[in-house]
């Protein structure tokens, strides 16, 4: 089992404006099982993106440890796929080439990696867009590409950094439903960062509420799958869980 273990993770950096050390992440511990979907939710500046960047290996951590499959995480690697808020697709590559990028870096031959890419594009209903460039697509379409590009590389963990934050409300709901569908089909391990409480609850098996760099509480989400907004919008349990999480992040 390729579990992700985070133990007493801390991040302290020197703030040149304040002239002192600032602790952005304070003693965070978290265990994520293989195939689990975990949302980390909290207000801006609570340290959630910093945590994700440390797991991705983009930022060094100053205390504690991050273990993937028992091995400490050092720097970025293909075992942790990332979906960015700004999509970060390669503008000079077609949609197909973007999705085939990970396999290409692994040395997979052209025919084989295009087959993989087509398969994942079909999963996200993007087959029509394969030959287009990212700039020719809407934001929602671009982030669909962002998600399957990361998935096509079959990472042990998929790290999603507020991926739907810049997408309009209607499209966002569609993308959330599609993400749960794709997750059920492929069952990747997901860590999903968001400030949107409803989104966190809708997607996850477990929600981690974060504030000022500390974990407040972990809440198990026992809603049935597959999930859809039509079913959950008026669902009493969904409302109850959302209210609970909202109360947590607001009170801190």
């Amino acid at each position, binding site marked *: 089992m390729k579990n992700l273990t985070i133990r007493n993770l801390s991040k302290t950096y020197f703030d040149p404006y304040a002239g002192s050390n600032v602790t952005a992440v304070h003693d965070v511990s978290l265990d994520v099982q293989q195939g689990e979907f975990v949302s980390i939710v909290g207000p801006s500046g609570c340290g959630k993106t910093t945590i994700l960047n440390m797991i*991705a*290996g*983009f930022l060094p951590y100053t205390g504690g440890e991050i273990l993937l499959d028992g091995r400490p995480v050092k*720097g*970025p*690697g*293909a075992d*942790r*796929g*990332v979906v*960015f808020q*700004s999509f*970060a*697709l*390669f*503008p*000079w590559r077609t949609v197909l080439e973007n999705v085939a*990028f*990970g396999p290409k*870096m*692994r040395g997979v031959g052209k025919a084989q990696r295009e087959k993989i890419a087509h398969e994942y594009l079909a999963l996200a209903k993007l087959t029509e867009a394969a030959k287009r*460039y*990212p*700039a*020719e697509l809407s934001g929602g379409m671009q982030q669909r590409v962002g998600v399957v*590009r*990361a998935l096509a*590389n079959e*990472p042990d963990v998929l*790290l999603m950094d507020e991926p739907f934050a810049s997408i309009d409300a209607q499209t966002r709901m569609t993308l959330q439903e599609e993400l749960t569908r794709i997750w059920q089909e492929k069952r990747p391990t997901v860590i999903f960062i968001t400030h949107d409480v409803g989104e966190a609850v809708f997607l996850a098996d477990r929600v981690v509420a974060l504030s000022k760099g500390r974990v407040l509480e972990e809440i198990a989400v026992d809603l049935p799958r597959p999930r859809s907004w039509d079913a959950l919008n008026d669902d009493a349990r969904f409302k109850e869980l959302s209210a609970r999480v909202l109360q947590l992040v607001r009170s801190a």
Partner: protein
Amino acid sequence: MARWPSIGAIAPFVLLIAVWWIVTELQIFPRVFLPGPVDVVRSFGSLVHTGILPEYLQDSMVRLAVGAFWGIAIGIPLGMLVGLSSRAHTALWPPLLFFQAIGDIAWLPILVIWFGYGLTTMTVVIVYTVIFPVILNTVLGVRSIPITMYRAAQSLGASRTRILWEVVLPGALPSIMTGLRNGLGYGWRALIATEIIVGTSGIGFLMFDARRAGSVVEILLGMIILGILWYIVDGWILAPIERATGQRWGLVTR
């Protein structure tokens, strides 16, 4: 994709030629000082017929191509180095600015002493002129690539070398093209100036030689050729590349 200029693009030139024609027909200036379009076309015909014009044209274009080649071959890697490495930036940026200020033909006096009146001098001047805009714009382009591009490539398993090819070069390409366009523009002018001063052939030499012979018609012909050539280089080589890269990718607004 090469494009023929549209009617709308040609119209101003038609007007200009018409005015020129009328002015010369009215004999406002003596014919020796301002020959008409027909004289220039006739001169073009005879210079092509004698083979002088094709030969000079070829010489100038080859010099520009050689300059462009070395400007690209040295300028882009150097620009990428300075753009990526803060150590290289610290060490190389001040001398780059220093030598950039000593523009092209300011080197001519010393180059003529070192290399004499010949091809080496001209090549040095044109490479020198092309290379700075290419370097400076490459640096700018490399530094404008969002950090998420690198992070995306890294988390998809790209090595440092792969990132150079897959991210840095294409990401900086629109800016590199701007540098190349500027560099070739400056280089073209520097080349003509150099041909006038040290040349033994080329369009610049043709014009200067015509002055010696008092042939205004050949000077005018040279000037027109300079304009047309740049129009061709820009419209048939540079612009199509830009359309196929930066514009297609949405990195440059049309």
